[in-house]
């Protein structure tokens, strides 16, 4: 048989942002699916969203309610979501209560009732909520085989009637094995919800999907007024062509720093600016984004520690006009500070903004704030998540400048607290140095991948217009410790000047 003669399985759009990508393009038409998970994780909302996305007057959706959430309450709450279209109730979307049937009759009668409704309506979508109630009833009667036969006949009938079916059930992961429901199902969507300290983390997994390649693994999702939104770990960029890297150099807005970097920041690179609090990292970020805007390069700033208006106002005080490009849509300052963010969700926001503005530059200020904004569960995967995020964004051709606060030590010079320096293409390190009774600022270009860069340790100042880089700090040793001492000065003379024993006159 030639490939052209194979059956083409149409994929239904779920109406759930991000979910079609997870499913490998959408839901296989006429498939028999389970939506499983613990109470309150969003199963009913997900089913409603899919139902409203696909139901039409010609191929309506039948929603069977069975001993779960009372239908009146379900309608009361579900209509709060934006996808819930009241005008389609009883035309495109029909609710049928099976509770009494399940309570009073056996599974054969329940099946007969479902079949009768399906044959009368000819639905495109069928939902049974909660199917667990049906299964419990069967088990209470000791009917494991009866249940399996029921599911098998139900699947057979609904598929024959060209309906895409969803059975909703509260299951635990331990119930996956030897469960006839999961054996018969073509698709199994598992919704997880876990409390981690004070945060709630929701994740979705396509455990099984016959006939097409879904994206494996756990993916974050959120429930908002618009319903469920999934955030695939692929960030929607699976089929996106990679932009070539380092085709040109981007100015930081500070000519001396550009020179230190070997001419500027290579396009598509990720640059890390590490330094202690107050060193000037955020100012460098503002100058980088402002310089891009001056050259007609749209930009995104993701801030975690200050509000967008404050960020723009601080730039204005230094003579940088970010307000005009912001109003013109060339700059977006995104504030991300809810405490249960996932990296995937954040990246989806940033990727969406990049696509909206066609941004060429991105400033993340700062990675420490970013980590703090994440739910504790996601912080454990922060490094891995950063890797995926940076890869995804640089593939879009965006040049990233991230700031990271480093806890200053006056004995060594760390690059960041996340051991993420290997993820970045370039590193600039700022630090305080104690010289001649002053706490001065010093800047070093530690790394520029694939390029030559200055190895000078340059003093810099934060002026009213931004960072001003001075001369190379010469005549000192131990600059990287932050407590340098002049070359040629002997230990004896130092001790002497301090009046310590052992010191000569």
């Amino acid at each position: 048989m030639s490939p052209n003669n194979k059956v083409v399985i149409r994929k239904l759009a779920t109406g759930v942002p991000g979910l079609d990508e997870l499913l490998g393009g959408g839901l296989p038409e006429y498939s028999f699916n389970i939506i499983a998970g613990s109470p309150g994780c969003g199963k009913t909302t997900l089913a409603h969203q899919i139902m409203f996305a696909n139901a039409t007057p010609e191929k309506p959706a039948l929603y069977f309610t069975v001993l779960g959430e009372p239908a009146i309450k379900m309608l009361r709450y579900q209509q709060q979501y934006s996808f819930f279209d009241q005008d389609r109730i009883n035309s495109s979307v029909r609710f049928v209560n099976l509770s009494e049937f399940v309570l009073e009759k056996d599974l054969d009668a329940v099946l007969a009732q479902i079949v009768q409704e399906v044959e009368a309506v000819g639905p495109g979508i069928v939902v049974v909520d909660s199917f667990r109630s049906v299964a419990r009833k069967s088990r209470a009667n000791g009917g494991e085989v009866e249940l399996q036969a029921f599911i098998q006949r139900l699947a057979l009938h609904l598929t024959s009637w060209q309906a895409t079916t969803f059975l909703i059930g509260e299951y635990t992961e331990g119930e996956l094995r030897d469960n006839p429901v999961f054996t018969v199902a073509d698709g199994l969507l598992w919704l997880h919800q876990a409390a981690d300290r004070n945060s709630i983390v929701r994740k979705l997994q396509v455990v099984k999907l016959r006939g097409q390649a879904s994206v494996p693994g756990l993916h974050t999702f959120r429930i908002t007024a618009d319903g469920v939104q999934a955030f695939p770990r692929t960030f929607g960029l699976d089929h996106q062509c990679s932009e070539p890297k380092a085709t040109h150099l981007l100015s930081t807005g500070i000519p001396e720093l550009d020179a230190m970097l070997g001419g500027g920041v290579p396009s598509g690179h990720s640059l890390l600016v590490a330094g202690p609090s107050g060193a000037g990292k955020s100012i460098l970020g503002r100058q980088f984004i402002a310089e891009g805007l001056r050259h007609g390069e749209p930009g995104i700033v993701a801030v975690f520690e200050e509000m967008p208006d404050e960020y723009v106002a601080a730039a204005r005080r230094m003579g940088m006009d970010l307000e005009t490009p912001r109003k013109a849509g060339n700059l977006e300052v995104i504030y991300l500070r809810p405490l249960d963010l996932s990296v995937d969700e954040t990246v989806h926001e940033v990727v969406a903004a990049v696509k909206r503005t066609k941004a060429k530059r991105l400033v993340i200020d700062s990675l420490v704030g970013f980590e703090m904004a994440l739910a504790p569960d996601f912080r454990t995967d922060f490094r891995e998540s950063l890797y995926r995020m940076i890869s995804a964004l640089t593939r879009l051709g965006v040049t990233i400048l991230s700031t990271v606060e480093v806890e200053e030590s006056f004995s060594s010079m760390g690059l960041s607290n996340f051991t993420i320096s290997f993820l970045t293409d370039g590193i600039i390190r700022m630090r305080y140095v104690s010289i001649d009774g002053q706490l001065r600022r010093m800047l070093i270009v530690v790394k520029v991948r694939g390029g030559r860069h200055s190895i000078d340790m340059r003093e810099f100042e934060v002026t009213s217009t931004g960072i001003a880089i001075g001369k190379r700090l010469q005549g000192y040793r131990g600059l990287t410790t932050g407590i340098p001492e002049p070359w040629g000065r002997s230990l004896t003379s130092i001790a002497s000047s301090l009046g310590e024993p052992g010191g000569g006159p």
Partner: protein
Amino acid sequence: MNSASLSSQTLARVLLSREAARYSADAGLPISLHAARVCEVLRTVLTAFAGSAGYRALLARALVLAKADSTVFASVHVSKDGTLAGVEASVEASVEGTHGRLSQCGCEDGPVLVAHLLDLLIALIGRSLTLRLVSDAWPDAPVESWNSLIQGAEKS
């Protein structure tokens, strides 16, 4: 006294009149009979998705509220399947007098039960969805007509 909302009272009156028109021979019979017929039509639509237990719970609550407002439904109760029982007793009790007759629909004791049932539905699932269900029960009138009827009642 009718403590139901004015808009639900208006809608209930129209529904009762519609049912009375369908059974014109019974026009002189008490309101409780016509109210029972309206409730029966609503029962068919509501039971389909809320189940008979769901509908029964709503009607029982509406009946309690109606009894507090009016004596018309004193002998009426909700049976297990969600139908109204005791309506016959109400009919017999009012054969001699005019109290509670449909001709008095404009009085405070008018369609109190149906109005309370509609109020409950509106409180739980919203006006839009309630009117859609009413429209499904009486499909000859589009939902827009019910909506404008209610809006007119609210303006007055």
